[in-house]
């Protein structure tokens, strides 16, 4: 292991999940071995990525060009700070999520588990490809691969509803990327003569402010995975997927790949200076802010827990977009922090939603009254995740909100500060009642309780709760381990924020 150069580590990180994906189907008939392969692959990936961290912290940018597809169009990788952070989060959470998946998929006795784990591994490989892409072509290649390999995951249930949602998912993501993102990439190539990610950007002095504005719009909406309104429809639709998919892919890998790409394009294609000088970023600040608030408001109205979380995700993704659109180092660092802390927080919430579904088959928030007594661990984790997302100490989410506010002030957008504040209040309004309901409201009256006309549910409810055995009714242990781990991570991130910031500073200080 010592002999491996950082350059080859970067390639191994992209390759490892794909190799895992090849191995998983071989153990189709031996589920334990099959899951062992998934876990081993995830562990190898995490180990590889962790080894890259000190190298990147030192200011090196390991990478390699694999092949020139056509002159000027290469498949190439390079690890820079933002990609490092993204890869670290995705690979760490993959380990946790794999443990969770095993508990969830088995408890639920889901069919087609082999293709589930295979597609998952491909999805992670594609995510690594996006994280380490050194140019727009490589990014686009893995971006499309990520869309395609997650389609079977979204439609896993193969019901008519799942297929409908899957079609929407595929068409919206493929559609935006083909119709908007690809022309944007081609235009960038045409204008700049290169599509390599370069510190300081590649468009400086080459395009008019109008052209930059149009290009930015093509990227912002073309990267549909960032779920910037109005191209967000696919995300709530994707919630028909099994919860582990929603958790890792539609709270972390896929959506973060989207906002990550937006940030990366802003920093390395446009260049912060070019963007601020042209003033072309201003509209995106407002569109992002609107998306941020609207999604929060819609989340308030959703009773289905996963749907509410989905709209919450849309809102939280908009934070990242706004941070990037501010086009200042502080804002970009805020975006990076938000990518990290929201990942930990939202995956916890999804894990909890899945645990609730597995343990009690409940999907609607209105059914979850009193659940805290049956599932205390789950609901405490849910509380932790919520607090982190709201941005309260001592959880990681606080620092990303903090950095974003600083970034907004830095760039002179006081309005954005107000938006961020209001949104935090909205977060409180749509997340905390779930927890409150679970702990402070009595469980609903069970069916066998009859003849209780007009009496207060409290009394009966308590009786029913006591009647339905004293014990707990938690999800499988694998699920609990996973959701406790990520909840702990939300807490740990509170103390690690400065290190992440230090890492992200590298985007602006050193060049290659």
């Amino acid at each position, binding site marked *: 292991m010592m002999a491996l150069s950082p350059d080859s580590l970067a390639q191994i990180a992209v390759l490892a999940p794909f190799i895992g994906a090849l191995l998983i189907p071989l153990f189709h008939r031996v589920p334990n071995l099959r899951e062992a392969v998934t876990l081993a692959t995830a562990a190898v990936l995490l180990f590889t990525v962790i080894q890259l961290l000190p190298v990147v912290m030192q200011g090196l940018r390991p990478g390699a060009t694999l092949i020139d*597809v*056509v002159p000027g169009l290469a*498949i190439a990788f390079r690890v820079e700070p933002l990609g490092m952070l993204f890869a670290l989060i995705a690979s760490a959470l993959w380990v946790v999520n794999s443990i969770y998946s095993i508990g969830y998929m088995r408890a639920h006795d889901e069919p087609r588990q082999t293709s589930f784990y295979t597609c998952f591994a491909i999805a992670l490989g594609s995510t690594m490809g996006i994280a380490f892409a050194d140019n727009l*072509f490589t990014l686009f290649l893995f971006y*499309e691969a990520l869309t395609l390999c997650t389609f079977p995951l979204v439609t896993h249930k193969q019901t008519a509803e799942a297929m409908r949602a899957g*079609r929407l998912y595929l068409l919206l993501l*493929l559609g935006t990327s083909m*119709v908007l993102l690809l*022309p944007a990439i081609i235009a960038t190539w*045409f204008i700049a003569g290169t599509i390599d990610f370069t510190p300081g950007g590649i468009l400086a002095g080459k395009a008019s402010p109008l052209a930059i504005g149009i290009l930015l719009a093509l990227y912002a909406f073309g990267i549909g995975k960032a779920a910037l309104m109005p191209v967000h429809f696919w995300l709530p639709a994707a919630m028909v997927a099994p919860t582990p998919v929603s958790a890792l892919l539609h709270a972390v890998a896929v959506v973060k790949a989207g906002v990550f790409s937006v940030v990366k394009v802003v920093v390395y294609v446009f260049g912060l200076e070019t963007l601020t000088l042209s003033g072309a970023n201003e509209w995106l600040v407002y569109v992002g802010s609107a998306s941020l608030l609207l999604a929060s408001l819609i989340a308030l109205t959703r009773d289905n827990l996963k749907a509410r979380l989905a709209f919450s995700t849309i809102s939280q993704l908009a934070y990242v977009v706004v941070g990037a659109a501010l086009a200042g180092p502080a804002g970009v660092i805020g975006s990076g922090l938000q990518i990290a802390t929201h990942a930990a927080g939202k995956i916890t919430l999804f894990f909890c939603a899945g645990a609730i579904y597995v343990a009690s088959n409940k999907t609607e928030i209105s059914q979850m009254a009193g659940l805290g007594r049956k599932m205390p661990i789950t609901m405490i984790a849910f509380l932790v995740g919520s607090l982190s997302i709201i941005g309260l100490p001592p959880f990681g989410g606080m620092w990303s909100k903090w950095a974003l506010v600083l970034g907004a002030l830095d760039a002179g957008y006081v309005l954005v500060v107000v938006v961020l504040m209001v949104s935090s209040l909205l977060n409180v309004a749509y997340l905390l009642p779930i927890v409150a309901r679970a702990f402070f409201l009595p469980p609903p009256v069970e069916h066998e309780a009859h003849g209780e006309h007009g009496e207060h549910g409290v009394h009966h409810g308590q009786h029913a709760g006591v009647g339905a055995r004293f014990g707990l009714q938690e999800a499988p242990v694998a699920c609990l381990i996973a959701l406790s781990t990520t909840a702990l991570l939300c807490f740990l991130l509170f103390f690690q924020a400065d290190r992440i910031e230090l890492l992200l500073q590298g985007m602006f200080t050193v060049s290659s």
Partner: protein
Amino acid sequence: MELVSSHLPALQIVIPLLGGLLAALLRRGVPAFALTLAVSWIMPVISAVLLDRVLTGGPISYALGGWPPPWGIEYRVDVLNGFVLMLISTIGAVIVPFARRSVALEVGERREAWFYCMYLMCLTGLLGVTITGDAFNAFVFLEVSSLSTYVLIALGRDRRALVAAFRYLIMGTIGATFYVIGVGFLYLLTGSLNMVDMAARLAAAPPEMARAMVAALAFLTVGISLKLALFPLHSWLPGAYAYAPSWATVFLSATATKVAIYLLVRFLFSIFGIALDFRGLPIVEILLALSIAAMFIASIIAVYQNNLKRMLAYSSLAQIGYMMLGIGIGNLAGLTGGLVHLVNHAMMKAALFLALGSLFYRIGTVRLAEIAGIGRKMPLTMGAFVVAGLGIIGTPGTAGFISKWYLAVGALDRGWWILVFLLVVSSLISVLYIGRVIEMAWFRPVAIQVAEAKDPPLSMLLPLLILAAATVYFGIDTRLTAGIAAQVAEFLLGGLR
């Protein structure tokens, strides 16, 4: 050896011609197939040697029967037709093993040998059109390939194949007639049928002949456009592809229209291009408009087809639109895109039709509604379908993306922003028709009719897998495809006035 080596251009034609005759005489399926296999596998060897010579040493001229051009018939290989020869003979060689079982099933014992005879004749014709440097000789070969194609289509076991063949016969004959009229005009103008000679004489022609030249150009363009099924002259193609025996469809879809496109490029660039600035004529706008119409209308029609062969046929029409678009764009990148799409589309569409041929071999139908869940029963076949389908869509990492990239860059070079968007939007429509099949095959419970199906035997599977792998390979390493196509484009543009 020296003898063989110097006569390679003639052998490229003579071997399949004699093979065809011999196949008919053999009468029985297996020996006829063995012969066909041998001939088909020799072809790419010859093409490769020719192409290599051309790439290193410039055009090869071969005087047939020792009569020097412009009096005798000249076979002339340059990068353009060397590239097309290579394409046709390679595709033929890759797909031919598939024919044995598929043809035996669909054409029947008794007519197998005739089928192979007709295939070799068709191959002769297509290679002949490509290699010859004589405009009238090209007509002869065009008819050789067309007549044998009519028979190939009519051998389909569905009775509608007869109607489809007849329809193609009518349309094809009209096309050929237009072509001959066009050549006739040129002969009147120049007194020559040799393409190089013609070009030189046209260039020296007095200005008052320009109108006649344009008339010739019009006849030739319409005639060849019929053969290459440019929208709206395409009406023969969907039926022909849908009802021909599966393997014949594979071959025709990958080669026949490509050769017609070659011929058009040859006339536009190497003959007229030298004499008159055809890019100043409305022909460019017409080609662009028709290509765009094909890209959209044919794609949309494809979405509504239930017979998958017919669906892919419409898809082919749309893809022909892309190739013609490249010609219409007419600059280095655009032309490269159009030419490389000849190759890319040939392998992707051949793979798709091979997958359908395998389906038909196993379950006797290619109707969308009857293949629910087939992916789980025939995973390799339908896996290859998915890969080739992604290529048609133009996903990055597949050959289709390369074509699209060059076309888009070419359009941008011209400042045609709108065209870039039309290009990507039209390829989005292909997501719909390819996606329908993938969804039905992979994401539906296995239907009872297909419960017994499994992947076809190796001889059928291997060509399919090779072409699917090529779709990915040539999406990543494009030296052999886009690299040569770029050289061809440069060669064509270099000769322009």
